[in-house]
């Protein structure tokens, strides 16, 4: 039998294609990060993107915070997972006035932006004023502050009211210092009307103009953000020359980590999803999220939820241990409104406990027989937990005490919108802090404050002891004493507030076994990418 040259050619091509396919298919088994497991310098970070911008003046979402922390230096920062004490970054030192109203920062010498130009006090003042005047989500943190330079290396931050937490605020990624000259060339302004006149976001989303350990290589808010090392960085060079933050569904993150060949991180595997992970992976977690119920204190909205005895009966009816079990590994029954990750949290022994007999007795005292309340919650899965499952458990627990809760799941935006109207009788929501200062809760959740008013909780309707406990926190300037005051405030809140803390849950970093420095931090940036190394 003779074989034609054409057939031979086709056969050869087919064999070659097969060989390439089989060899590549083997490497395709990895997630695409570092199939070689050794020499590559790419760190892959898998996360479900919550990303709108990389403009430090507008940054608020988790994925963006992680990236921006590596792109822009801040005056101070946090090291590893310790969020109790800010440490020097751009500022080599700082001084606070005794009244906690004036903070003076001395800038580090020799810091350059990624384009090689020197970072000055003018850049710091411009960046902070821009943050304040752009009036995006993070501006609230600095709304009462003024910024000025006294010389080329000194920046003074002044607060209208005493606030010992200003150093913490100045460690947040949104206070990252931008190269003011380049930013201005692309539409940035720190003027009072910056909310309207600043047009730099589109440029800052695709170009970084900072002095951090990385520079932005590419930005796609739906797919991936790529960072590369900043050749002009003043500090230690990061281990990985390239970091890819990749958008990935939570379930896919778990499968990917189970097959990870090396140098991969996942940021959203938490709770029940942690079960079954190989022992070769490293897990770092901190309880930084609190899940709580809020009852409306306005009798016009609901005579039932506003009844103090009903409030206490519902607290007593809930099986806190059982609810924590729904969250899986890393969760704990509720104690106070401050999550355990932050200074000022209540100790574990003060976790709430169930007492159904007490709940029934309280209902009798309240004169309520089989009370019915509409129970709203956002129909979402948050950090691996379906809120509907938790709501159903609360409903079941309450029913055992004779309380009927009518479950009302809502799309998130609808829930938030209705919550703002203050007409919700009973609601359920998770809460994480925007920055690691727990006493920011005082300004939101104390009676008469904006969040409290959404539950109809005015100063007039509140127990004076709660108001006094909140006042004591804000008047205490020593941070350790302030944390103790926060604990007292939470005890007062547990006794007489419209909030019922159900559980606290962990946020987690799952990393491949070859990595070091992958501690989860509650500082906002989840993991310090520049600190990740190979062990």
């Amino acid at each position, binding site marked *: 039998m003779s074989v034609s040259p054409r057939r031979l050619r086709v056969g050869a091509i087919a064999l070659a294609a097969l060989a390439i396919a089989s060899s590549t*298919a083997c490497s*395709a*088994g990895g997630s695409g*990060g570092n*199939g070689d497991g050794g020499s590559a310098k790419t760190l892959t970070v898998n996360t479900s993107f919550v990303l709108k911008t990389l403009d430090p003046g507008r940054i608020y979402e988790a994925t963006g915070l992680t990236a921006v922390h590596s792109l822009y230096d801040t005056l101070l920062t946090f090291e590893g997972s310790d969020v109790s004490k800010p440490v020097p970054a751009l500022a080599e030192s700082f001084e606070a006035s005794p009244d906690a109203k004036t903070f003076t920062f001395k800038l580090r010498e020799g810091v350059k932006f990624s384009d090689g130009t020197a970072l000055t006090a003018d850049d710091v003042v411009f960046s902070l004023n821009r943050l304040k005047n752009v009036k995006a989500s993070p501006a609230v943190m600095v709304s009462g502050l003024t910024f000025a330079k006294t010389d080329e290396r000194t920046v003074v931050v002044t607060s209208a009211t005493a606030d010992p937490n200003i150093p913490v605020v100045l460690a947040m990624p949104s206070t990252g210092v931008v190269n003011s000259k380049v930013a201005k060339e692309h539409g940035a302004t720190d003027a009072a009307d910056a*909310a309207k006149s600043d047009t730099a976001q*589109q440029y800052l989303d695709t170009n970084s103009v900072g002095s951090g350990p990385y520079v932005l290589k590419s930005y796609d808010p739906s797919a991936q953000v790529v960072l590369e090392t900043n050749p002009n960085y003043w500090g230690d060079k990061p281990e990985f020359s390239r970091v890819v933050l990749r958008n990935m569904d939570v379930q896919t993150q778990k*499968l990917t980590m189970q097959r990870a060949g090396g140098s991969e991180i996942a940021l959203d595997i938490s709770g029940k999803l942690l079960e079954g992970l190989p022992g070769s992976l490293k897990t770092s977690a901190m309880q930084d999220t609190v899940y709580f119920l809020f009852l409306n204190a306005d009798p016009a909205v609901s005579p039932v939820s506003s009844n103090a005895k009903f409030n206490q009966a519902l607290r007593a009816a809930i099986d806190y241990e059982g609810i924590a079990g729904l969250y899986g590994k890393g969760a704990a029954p509720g104690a106070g409104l401050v999550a355990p990750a932050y200074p000022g949290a209540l100790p574990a022994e003060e976790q709430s406990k169930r007492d159904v007999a007490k709940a029934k007795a309280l209902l009798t005292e309240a004169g309520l027989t089989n009370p019915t309340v509409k129970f709203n919650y956002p129909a979402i899965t948050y950090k691996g937990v379906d809120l509907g499952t938790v709501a159903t458990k609360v409903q079941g627990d309450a029913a055992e005490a004779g309380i009927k809760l009518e479950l009302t799941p809502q799309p998130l935006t*609808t829930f938030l919108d209705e919550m703002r109207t203050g007409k919700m009788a009973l609601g359920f929501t998770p809460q994480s802090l925007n920055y690691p200062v727990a006493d920011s809760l005082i300004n*939101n959740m104390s009676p008469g404050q904006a969040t409290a008013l959404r539950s109809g909780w005015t100063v007039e309707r509140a127990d004076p002891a709660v108001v006094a406990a909140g006042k004591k926190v804000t008047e205490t300037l020593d941070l350790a004493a302030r944390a103790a005051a926060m604990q007292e405030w939470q005890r007062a809140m547990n006794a007489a507030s419209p909030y019922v803390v159900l559980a606290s849950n962990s946020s987690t970093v799952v990393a491949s076994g070859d990595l070091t420095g992958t501690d989860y931090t509650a500082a906002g940036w989840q993991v310090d990418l520049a600190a990740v190394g190979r062990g």
Partner: protein
Amino acid sequence: MTTTVDDAEPGAVTTTVSRPRPRRALLVFLLKRVAITAGLLLGVTIVTFGLVTVVPGDPVTANLSDQALNDPAAVAAFQEKWGLDQPLYVQYFQYLGNLLTGDLGISQQTGRTVADDLFQYVPATMELAIPTMVLALLIGTGIGMLAAVRNGRVTDQLIRVGALLGLSTPPFWLSLVVLYVFFYQLGLAPSGGRLSTDFSPPPTKTGMYTVDAALAGQWDVAWDAAQHLILPVLVLTSLTVAMLVRFVRSSMLEVLQQDYIRAAYAKGLPARVVFRRHLLRAGLVPVITVSGLAFASLLSGTVLVENIFGWPGLGQYAYRSATALDLPAILGVSLFVALVYTLVNLTVDLLYGLIDPRIRLS
């Protein structure tokens, strides 16, 4: 659409026997369609604007942090920036005015122009939709015909059960199963995304990585991008094939029962000739309609599949925009989808004439 018949073959629709000039008829037809499309797009903008205002939820709440919501200055700044402080009709006419100059507005989610977003996300979805449709048409048509020819036999029964299973399978579940088997267990394909993290996207020409990488001569990137297509295309093809099989089968069965097919067999024509000349042409006309709609559906967004595979396409963009009540983006996607459906319908109508010469446009 009016159909005319210039061939008195049995089974054809008989409405008129006039024979209009083909080019003029086509021109009139196209002009009518352009006018209808313009009206349709205008309608889409009105309906979308209306819907966004009646659905519960406020763009300010959806886009600002809880703390910022407590700051009236931050709320006012957001409303002013996005024109939300204007009456709805003013917002609408401003949008319409900008639209006439080709300006689709700026997305509140991405901070980029909606046009830029569409130019980025549509090609990503096209890269999934094109191979899916090619494969689905080849496989679905073949299997559907086989089922029709084997009507009532075991093969037909198996195909029908398979198609039913395919149609009943939730896309996200199938995506997870495929991931588990082919990525996790067998390691035959990557888990998600458009490229491995060791690669950078090729220079943009079409927005489709496989094509762009090939055009740039980056064969390793093209191969890597092609591998990332495997699993999402597999899922989408399975679902599309299931739908096509049922249509092809029923369409073919209908034609097989026509008298002229029996007559053709009775005249002694070979089966392949009957198949090519009569069965294929008549049976494929309704299939074209379904294929067109399936393609439009793939382009307008396969949210769950894109989400599971981390595919940054139009589906994900639409979902994110809707949940954030990002009106410019929602309007941009709606207009694009309406345009796609219009163009697909137009293409389908034109293809009718090509596939079955008995059908003419007038």
